[in-house]
């Protein structure tokens, strides 16, 4: 019986950098012996003939750990997929449930068990559990991001349900962070949710943000948008930013020192000039598009994959069904991250923006 065996990133130096290798065997034990013959360096890792598989390595047949099957005596048949998954230093081995849950990620060589471990070890703060915050939180939770901090002081309103996929009809009147925690737990109990049922302010923003690796913005007002921007820069945290209005969305990623929201828009519009989503409306699926892009950016940063949306502003027009990009530069004159900064701590954003700090109800 020829079986395809998935080899995780840390072992690939032993298999000529191949992520899938073939070996022969009618049982898992035979297969491991044959693997050891073909790749002698693997033999020490997998245990020699007759030994048990070392405790820090799990063997999976079709996503089931062999201890839940018949151990090394587990029979193999054509088409079975075998994976060798080691514990990463400091972490425990995936449970069989986790290997199956995250198998579509783990199977991709760019992610693999190490990428999945990084996701599980990551702490992401999501500002808002509304239109953008819903898909961001949900997708990060499904991906197994270990800790999600969610800041939202609002309660669920019937008019939210046209787009806010974290909340359900029976949640109306409940705090959004509680509804969010319940929805996330139902989707993936692995995820630890830390709810902040309070507005983000100049008094608490740095304290909260400092506890996370990455911040994702789903704020619905300019005061919070500038506050989150400033706090992330001052705390040295990457910020994934997104905004939506009517049929349009914007998304970008700010890495400290490589431009910020103030470089993009030096000041907010005067109050009343730009209507809010509550006043003007927003297409219900639009936050799904922009929120998913924000979630993608966050997991790319966590796993160190690809090219982040740094130095680029992505613009989505749902009616034209068109994505465009414009350049976004660090402004040497930026009061926050420029050459001669004047902002060294969080300012009074209420005064700065000329609007009351996010009031209860519709913003």
């Amino acid at each position, binding site marked *: 019986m020829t079986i395809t065996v998935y080899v995780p990133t840390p072992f690939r130096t032993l298999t000529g950098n191949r992520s899938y290798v073939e070996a022969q065997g009618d049982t898992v034990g035979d297969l491991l012996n044959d693997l050891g013959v073909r790749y002698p360096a693997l033999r020490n890792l997998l245990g020699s003939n007759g030994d048990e598989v070392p405790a820090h390595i799990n063997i999976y047949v079709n996503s089931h750990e062999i201890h839940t099957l018949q151990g090394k005596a587990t029979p193999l048949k054509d088409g079975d997929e075998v994976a060798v998954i080691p514990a990463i230093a400091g972490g425990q081995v995936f449970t069989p449930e986790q290997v199956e849950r995250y198998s579509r990620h783990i199977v991709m060589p760019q992610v693999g068990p190490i990428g999945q471990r990084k996701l599980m070890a990551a702490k992401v703060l999501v500002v808002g559990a509304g239109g953008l915050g819903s898909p961001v939180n949900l997708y990060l939770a499904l991906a197994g991001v270990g800790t999600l901090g969610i800041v939202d002081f609002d309660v669920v309103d019937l008019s939210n349900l046209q787009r806010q996929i974290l909340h359900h009809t029976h949640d109306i009147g409940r705090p959004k962070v509680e509804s969010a925690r319940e929805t996330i737990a139902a989707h993936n109990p692995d995820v630890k949710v830390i709810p902040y049922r309070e507005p983000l302010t100049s008094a608490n923003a740095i304290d909260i943000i400092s506890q996370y690796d990455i911040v994702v913005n789903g704020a619905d007002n300019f005061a919070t948008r500038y506050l989150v921007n400033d706090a992330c820069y001052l705390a040295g945290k990457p910020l994934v930013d997104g905004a939506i209005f009517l049929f349009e969305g914007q998304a970008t990623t700010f890495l400290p020192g490589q431009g910020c929201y103030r470089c993009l828009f030096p000041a907010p519009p005067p109050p009343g000039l730009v209507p809010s989503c509550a006043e003007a409306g927003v297409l219900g699926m639009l936050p799904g598009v922009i929120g998913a892009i924000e979630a993608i950016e966050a997991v790319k940063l966590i796993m160190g994959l690809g090219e982040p949306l740094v130095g680029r502003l992505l613009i989505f027009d749902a009616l034209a069904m068109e994505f465009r990009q*414009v350049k976004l530069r660090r402004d040497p004159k930026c009061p926050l991250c420029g050459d001669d900064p004047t902002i060294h701590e969080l300012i009074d954003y209420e005064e700065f923006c000329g609007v009351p700090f996010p009031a209860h109800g519709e913003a």
Partner: protein
Amino acid sequence: MTVEVRVTATLQKLIGQKVVRGQGETVSQVLTDLEQRYPGFQTQVLTEDGALHRFVNIYLNDEDVRFLQSLETPLHEGDVLSILPALAGGGR
């Protein structure tokens, strides 16, 4: 010089479409041209002193004109100007 000017939400309402042709040798001249045809256009983009609003960006092709010569940036036939205001919405 004819350039294409692409606008979003608020300005789209004023103009009635999302792409409009504008005439001018510089960004500033195109804005003046549009103001003549669409009264009120300029106040959405410029302050009373004639400077660019700090919450509105104008891109020449994909470059922010603030990093070029701002309103005095010269234009070429076929250039695309995009006028992009800050969006705040998170869809609360």
